[in-house]
């Protein structure tokens, strides 16, 4: 069993007990525990079930690389799945639940999958679930959905807050182990602005556990002194619980700080995402120990050797009473020695190597009375939910059992892999270190910055320097190099790296499979990826089936695709793949390292951008009035526009019908302030607008308005609106509501990058004006009540505009109509908008005035057959498709889109053309419905011959009206088309003219 020891625990405060629950069971730990160490102290080795076979899984590691110990943490608004027990600091009241099992952790029905594992090899899903197609809906998908996903999704809104920080520094040191501390000190001594971040709560990394001396004192002393020295320096910022998540172009780093995870009662944001721009980055990210691939290496109780000694030394926890150490290197002997010193049993060390003489550590172990078997390994681990023993074999053989040794923990070590993730994120290349059998940073191929020079330096064991003395000197050099790279003087005023001493280690020997000649039976039980259940045999099968590229093999087997991203499994998997392909490991290469290094919370990514501040909203000057008068809001770009003004006792549909009828019969007011208004001015403004619009704008007379179309170079229609000529050199161009910024940018782009000698100035004045459309047969009467300028048909004709005063307001009045009614659009400075609106409502009171919203606007324009950008257009429609030939100049040599509209596909007579559609029974066509045609296409789908682009119920005509694009539409008037709806019904509609109302256009022209 695992238990708390009477002694040890350098990170614990044993005077403070902490209570928590696991699967509802009350447990206690100490302040300073991680959830993992506290679980082990309570004899809870079993923490979850694996993804595919639901095999029992125990704690393997002690840090960020943990693949098994994932729990659902917290409750309600603080619930979060897939939290690693090894990186979760214990706090009072913590609640954790294990994942991926049913009905309970101890007894799991899904474990039946394990019995079937013979039938679920690599690529099982791809092979099995392809055909027959009909089985997908009722068999495959429910099965996959049930099996998929480890944790549960949160159900409530997140109770916590999050924020983003921006920071700048000369040197950013990622990792606060001894390498990071020394690199930071070396850089800071030059005067450079240094930031040092550490993902855990403690400085010093694992060096204090592994022993040795720095400057003649224990490592802990060096850590304390260096941290104190750094804290005293003004040019240094130190942050703990902050992980370097990703390294990006030109020294940009995303970093993830966990502020209150360890103390939820604290005020302030829970997580912080730092966006750091660093002159140079030092990755002092350490190394991760590798598992060994032997049968049964996933049984709870099989752990990394370094993790076992971490639990003993840091947390005073014994993972088990009897530990067998299995290794291919000297480093794991430290674990055996630490266990012995803690008074625990180590029946044997199985060392796969054969060495000519005993190394120093080997001699120490033997002196403690530990039995060391050289050239030996594990044939298989015995046990189910907990290790009960190991069967020993010769590493060189096929696994014949020489003896069995009872034990409850197996501490394994396959050597160490430098953590190269951050080095690799932005293009840093790797090289193969034969002595350590590991990939390490290739110093000649570092990520390069804006100046073409390296901007990342790896330090300490992250660079491949694994032993204490090498770590310190390497890190000191890295810190100095980083400071120099940012222009700081090399002449240090402090001494170079302090002297360090440690017990020498004999060379390791690569072992990728144990025993070397393991047969299929053993290989099918030798796990590579614990979380995703990938075994040695799976990778070998993938290679056999032709998945030779490491990226293909990864996806086929799902090796390294779990939430731990293969921190433990990748290198072992690569080695097996290389062996199967009979090629050296460097030739196989690695999969791509992608940020973040470990998962970061969605809350941190979102930061403050949630709720009301998620996205800024644009409001017109009359917004509050609309809000107080029943407006239902419609988002249009970033604007909010009233969809309809709903009165009490009325449905939204009722309101729309009422507004539409009233505007045709009496008087309607529309807040048109959101329409884009762009001033184009200069000696060449006319010439420029002739290029921008399909029609001629240079010939427009001052005081007149013209409707214009804008296309892109492909010829596709991108915007429309009324252009008014203000004076000889000035035009005002109206755009769609969503189009103002886009069209302004479009104009700027052409002026700056193509016609830069033309003298034209463009300004977006959209928000400077409030604009109100006064619409309906009584519009003129209303304005006459206001008094001021002459708005008669004789003085201000259709498509005229004039400046003047109305009711005391300085106004610009455009006589334009998007409704087909007599209509005036009145612009005033934005600050006058509400006052003018109030005045118009007052004078309109006796004329039946009602405000109307966007849906009424849509119906009015559809009754008239006016197109709407975004409804009739979708980026593939040219003006000719919409019967707008009259708005395309034949006289101009050139305009944007003219050449595009001459391309063969654009002049194809079979392009669908705009028509009106009138349902046979008066109902309303479904939006976006397609008109079916005879026959089927190559995919077996029904052929189509048109589609609905706009559809409404017209209260003025009392039936459904629609517009659509139809094959040869204008030549097929009167023909009836069939539109199958998604509701299973078939809609019949007759092809008619798109102008349903006042076809002669008499109404606006009075």
């Amino acid at each position, binding site marked *: 069993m695992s238990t708390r020891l009477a002694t040890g625990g350098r990170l614990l405060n044993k005077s403070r007990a902490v209570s928590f629950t696991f699967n509802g069971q009350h447990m206690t730990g100490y302040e300073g525990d991680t959830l993992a160490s506290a679980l082990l102290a309570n004899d809870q080795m079993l923490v979850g079930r694996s993804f595919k076979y639901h095999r029992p899984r125990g704690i393997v590691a002690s840090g960020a690389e943990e693949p098994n110990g994932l729990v659902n943490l917290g409750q309600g608004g603080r619930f979060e799945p897939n939290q690693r027990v090894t990186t979760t600091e214990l706090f009072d009241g913590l609640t954790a639940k294990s994942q991926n099992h049913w009905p309970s952790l101890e007894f799991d029905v899904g474990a039946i999958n394990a019995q079937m594992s013979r039938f679920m090899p690599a690529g099982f899903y791809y092979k099995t679930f392809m055909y027959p197609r009909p089985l997908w809906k009722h068999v495959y998908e429910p099965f996959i959905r049930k099996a998929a996903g480890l944790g549960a999704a949160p159900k409530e809104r997140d109770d916590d807050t999050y924020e983003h920080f921006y920071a700048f520094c000369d040197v950013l040191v990622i990792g606060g182990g001894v390498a990071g501390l020394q690199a930071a000190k070396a850089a800071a001594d030059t005067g450079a602005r240094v930031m040092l971040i550490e993902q855990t709560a403690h400085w010093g990394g694992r060096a204090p556990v592994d022993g040795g001396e720095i400057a003649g004192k224990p490592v802990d002393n060096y850590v304390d002194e260096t941290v104190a020295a750094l804290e005293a320096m003004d040019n240094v910022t130190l942050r703990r619980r902050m992980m370097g998540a990703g390294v*990006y*172009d*030109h*020294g*940009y780093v995303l970093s993830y700080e966990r502020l209150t995870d360890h103390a939820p009662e604290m005020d302030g944001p829970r997580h912080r995402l730092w966006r750091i*721009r660093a002159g140079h980055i030092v990755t002092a990210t350490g190394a991760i120990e590798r598992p060994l691939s032997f049968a049964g290496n996933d049984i709870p109780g099989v752990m990394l050797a370094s993790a076992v000694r971490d639990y003993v030394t840091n947390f005073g926890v014994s993972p088990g009473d009897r530990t067998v150490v299995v290794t291919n290197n000297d480093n794991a002997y430290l674990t055996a020695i630490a266990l012995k010193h803690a008074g625990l049993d180590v029946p044997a060390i199985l060392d796969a190597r054969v060495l000519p003489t005993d190394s120093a550590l080997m001699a120490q172990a033997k002196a403690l009375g530990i039995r060391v078997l050289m050239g030996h390994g594990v044939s298989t681990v015995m046990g189910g939910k907990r290790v009960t023993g190991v069967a020993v074999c010769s590493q060189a053989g096929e696994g014949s059992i020489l003896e069995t040794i009872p034990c409850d923990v197996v501490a394994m070590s396959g050597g160490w892999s430098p953590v190269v993730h951050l080095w690799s994120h932005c*293009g840093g290349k790797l090289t193969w270190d034969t002595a350590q059998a590991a990939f390490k940073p290739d110093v000649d191929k570092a990520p*390069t*910055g*804006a*100046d*073409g020079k390296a901007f990342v330096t790896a330090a300490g064991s992250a660079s491949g320097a694994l032993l204490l003395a090498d770590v310190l000197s390497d890190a000191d050099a890295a810190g100095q190099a980083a400071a120099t790279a940012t222009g700081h003087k090399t002449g240090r005023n402090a001494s170079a790296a302090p002297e360090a001493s440690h017990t020498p280690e004999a060379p390791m020997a690569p072992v990728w499979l144990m025993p070397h000649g393991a047969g299929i039976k053993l290989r099918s039980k030798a796990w590579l990826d614990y979380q995703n259940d990938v075994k040695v045999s799976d990778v070998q099968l993938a290679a056999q089936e032709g998945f030779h590229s490491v990226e293909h093999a990864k996806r086929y087997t799902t090796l390294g695709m779990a939430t731990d991203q293969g921190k433990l499994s990748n290198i072992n998997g690569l080695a097996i793949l290389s062996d199967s392909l009979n090629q050296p490991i460097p030739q196989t290469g690695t999969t791509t390292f992608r940020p973040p290094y470990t998962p970061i919370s969605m809350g941190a990514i979102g930061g403050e951008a949630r709720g009301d501040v998620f996205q800024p909203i644009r409001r017109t000057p009359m917004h509050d009035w609309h809000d107080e008068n029943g407006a239902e809001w419609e988002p249009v770009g970033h604007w909010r526009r009233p969809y309809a003004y709903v009165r009490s006792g009325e449905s939204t549909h009722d309101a729309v019908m009422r507004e539409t009828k009233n505007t045709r019969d009496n008087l309607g007011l529309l807040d048109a302030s959101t329409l884009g208004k762009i001033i184009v001015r200069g000696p060449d403004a006319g010439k420029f607008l002739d290029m921008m619009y399909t029609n001629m704008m240079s010939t427009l007379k001052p005081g007149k308005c013209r409707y214009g179309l804008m296309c892109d*170079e*492909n010829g596709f229609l991108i915007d429309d609106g009324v252009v008014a000529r203000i004076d000889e050199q000035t035009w005002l161009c109206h755009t769609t509501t969503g189009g103002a910024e886009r069209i302004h*940018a479009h104009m*700027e*782009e052409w002026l*700056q*990058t*193509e016609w*830069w000698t033309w003298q034209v100035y463009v300004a977006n004045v959209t928000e400077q004006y409030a604009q109100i459309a006064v619409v309906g047969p009584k519009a003129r009467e209303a304005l006459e009540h206001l008094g001021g300028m002459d708005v008669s048909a004789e003085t201000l004709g259709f498509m005229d505009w004039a400046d003047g005063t109305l009711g005391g307001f300085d106004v610009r009045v455009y006589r334009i109509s998007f409704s087909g009614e007599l209509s005036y659009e009145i612009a005033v400075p934005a600050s006058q908008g509400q006052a003018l609106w109030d005045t118009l409502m007052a004078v309109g009171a006796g004329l039946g005035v009602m405000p109307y919203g966007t849906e009424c606007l849509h119906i009015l324009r559809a009754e008239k057959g006016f197109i709407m950008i975004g409804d009739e257009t979708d980026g593939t429609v040219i003006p000719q498709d919409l019967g707008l030939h009259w708005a395309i100049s034949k006289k101009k*040599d*050139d305009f944007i889109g*003219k*050449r*595009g509209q*001459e*391309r063969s596909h654009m002049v194809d007579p079979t392009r669908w053309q705009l028509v009106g559609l009138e349902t046979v029974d008066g109902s309303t066509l479904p939006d976006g419905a397609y008109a079916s045609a005879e026959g089927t296409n190559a995919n077996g789908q029904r052929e189509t011959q048109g589609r609905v682009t706009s559809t409404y119920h017209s209260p003025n005509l009392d039936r459904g009206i629609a517009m659509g694009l139809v094959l040869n539409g204008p030549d097929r008037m009167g023909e009836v088309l069939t539109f199958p709806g998604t509701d299973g019904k078939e809609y019949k509609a007759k092809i008619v003219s798109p102008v349903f109302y006042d076809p002669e256009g008499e109404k606006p022209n009075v």
Partner: protein
Amino acid sequence: MLILTCPCCGVTGEETEFHAGGEAHLKRHGPGSTEDQFEEYLFMRENPKGVHFERWRHVYGCGKWFHAARSTTTLEVYGTYAAQTHEPPKDLRDTISKKVPGWTWREFQ
């Protein structure tokens, strides 16, 4: 995330301040051009491994368009220059030649 210097206002800023605008120095072909010329103008683009010339706009700054010469592999920025030119300036081309001997991009080298 790149760092660029706007040649118009002199600000050195984060990529989020700018907006990428595709390949630089395209020749516009309008009415009267052949199908091949128009296709070239609208659709054909370089896809270089190495030296590349791009258009950028300082959209959350001075609003001006400019050009940037950079490497698509090392992300080195060789320089930025005004939008109002049909070709990369000679001194910039010389700078690139010193760093990347023998580079070519479209008709330039």
